[in-house]
Each structure stands twice: as structure tokens, then as C-alpha cells.
């Protein structure tokens, strides 16, 4: 029985493109802004989830990355309590923070928007993913200067080692205005993942694999 944790799927979104497990799944040839791109990708997937349109841009990025990631395999077989979500980025929720500031900066037009305010924390993105996928296990969000693959792999692997989780959605979801990139992975305990019918492995979950996947994303 293997005790290692493996990557069983990954999704990257960047430059008007969605890549799932190494294959281009959606691509917009003409440049469009993030809002239009993510909406077109969402509609193409024919996902019935009207709350998507109420999310802020960062949550849309994380949410849709996860939707694409899980559409083939899903999380079936794992208990809600033993599935985790651990994500990180460098701009936190700054994109939405600035949007909220716009609603309060003018004293004569002072109308703080409650629906914008609720997204002025980056971990709300995790909340949206958890609600959608009924995940109740460990969830954490880290703000880092750059994608710290060593920290993330160590943190998530420790959750597995401490027997807190059996599966985890993890990675990087960064967004500021129209600059966006995500690398969201599904990591599973190898001995459990190997039992599933459509088992695929993209390597042991660790710094080197993360570095390689992120390098491919940013090339």
C-alpha cells in the first residue's frame, strides 16, 4: 500500500484558456477581459448555478477552476469531512477590495455595497467551492509573495500525514484586474485513488511536481 499523495487531476486558467489535465478545454482566441472570458467559459460548460454571477472575480476564477477540475472524476467516494481545500495567492482579495472602496470613496455617493463587501476576504473563494461541493474538511487560504510550492506541498502533505483528510483541492488562484492565473489540483491518498475506476496520476504531490506544473502554466 502506497502512503504517498498523488495528483489525480489539475486545471489551469490563464490567458483566455482553460487547460484540464494538460489538454486545452476552452480557449477564446480574441482578447476579452476577465469578466467576459470567465462568463463565456462558464456558459460553455452549461453549469446550472446562478450564484456564480454574484461572485466576485477571484471566486469565479477559483470556482470555475474547480468545476473543470472535478467534472471528470468528482469527489465521489470521499466523505465531506475528510476532503479539504487549501489555496493561496499573492493579491489576496485586493481586486474586490478596490471595487468596494469605489462604493464608499465619495462622501456624496456613499453607498457601501453589501454584496461586494462579503467578498473582501480571499477565503470566501474557498467558501464558494466548499458550498458547491459540500466540502466540510480543513480549509485554509494563504497570501504569499509568490507561489510558494514548498510551503503548500508541505502543508497539504502534513494534513494527509496527520490523518485529517483523504483528498484535497489545492493550488494557486491569483487575480488582479485582468491579470489572472490559476493552478488548481486534486490531490488524493494514492492507496484510495488507485481503487477508483478512472484512476489517473500526474505524479506525486510535492514541490517538484508543483514547480513543473506551474512552470508550464506561466510559460
Amino acid at each position: 500500500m502506497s502512503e504517498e499523495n498523488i495528483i489525480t487531476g489539475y486545471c489551469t486558467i490563464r490567458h483566455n484558456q482553460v487547460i484540464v489535465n494538460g489538454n486545452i478545454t476552452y480557449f477564446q482566441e480574441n482578447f476579452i477581459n476577465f469578466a467576459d472570458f470567465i462568463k463565456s467559459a462558464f456558459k460553455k460548460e452549461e453549469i446550472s448555478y446562478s450564484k456564480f454571477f454574484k461572485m466576485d472575480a477571484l471566486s469565479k476564477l477559483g470556482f470555475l477552476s474547480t468545476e473543470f477540475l472535478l467534472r471528470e472524476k468528482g469527489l465521489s467516494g470521499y466523505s465531506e469531512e475528510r476532503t479539504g481545500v487549501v489555496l493561496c495567492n499573492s493579491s489576496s482579495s485586493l481586486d474586490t477590495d478596490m471595487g468596494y472602496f469605489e462604493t464608499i470613496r465619495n462622501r456624496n455617493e456613499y453607498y457601501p455595497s453589501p454584496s461586494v463587501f462579503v467578498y473582501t476576504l480571499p477565503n470566501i473563494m474557498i467558501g464558494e467551492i466548499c458550498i458547491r461541493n459540500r466540502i466540510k474538511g480543513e480549509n485554509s487560504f494563504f497570501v504569499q509573495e509568490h507561489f510558494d510550492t514548498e510551503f503548500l506541498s508541505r502543508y497539504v502533505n502534513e494534513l494527509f500525514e496527520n490523518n485529517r483528510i483523504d483528498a484535497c483541492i489545492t493550488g494557486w488562484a491569483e487575480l488582479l484586474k485582468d491579470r489572472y492565473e490559476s493552478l488548481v489540483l486534486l490531490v488524493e491518498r494514492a492507496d484510495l485513488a488507485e481503487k477508483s475506476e478512472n484512476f489517473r496520476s500526474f505524479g506525486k504531490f510535492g514541490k517538484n511536481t508543483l514547480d513543473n506544473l506551474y512552470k508550464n502554466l506561466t510559460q
Partner: protein
Amino acid sequence: MEELINKLKKEVIEQLNLEDITVDDIDADSPLFGEGLGLDSIDALELIVLLEKNYGLKIEDPKDGKKIFHSIRTMAEYITEHQKA
């Protein structure tokens, strides 16, 4: 009144980002919360902001909210009544 109702429908769709809903989809008498449009508590707060921003109306007593925001028609009635005052 019908003109205000149509205007309100458009404003609610825009303010609440009801992407897949059109003006024709909203029945002026259907409940906005629960089985109607399925709005949530954050939407309720946005509706309060909408009344203040677009119509200069502040809801002084939160208890009135349930009655005012029952439907698009009750919102329109509240606006008509209070803008005259």
C-alpha cells in the same frame, strides 16, 4: 405604477446580478424571497441600498423590510407613497 414596476425590475436585475433573469421572468406580485426569485439575505441588503441610492428612501425600521420587499409591486407602492410624502 406599471412604468415604475418595469423600471424596478430592471434595477433589481442589474443590482443583484440576476444574469439569467429577464424583466418578463419577474412577476410583479410574486415573492422576491423564498420560492420567488430565491433571493438571500445579502440581496435584501442590496435592495435597501437600491432604494436609498435610486430613490433617496431610507428604511428607518428594519421590521418594515419584510412588507416592503415582499414583491416588486410592494416595493413600487412603497416608493410611490413615500416619494410623495
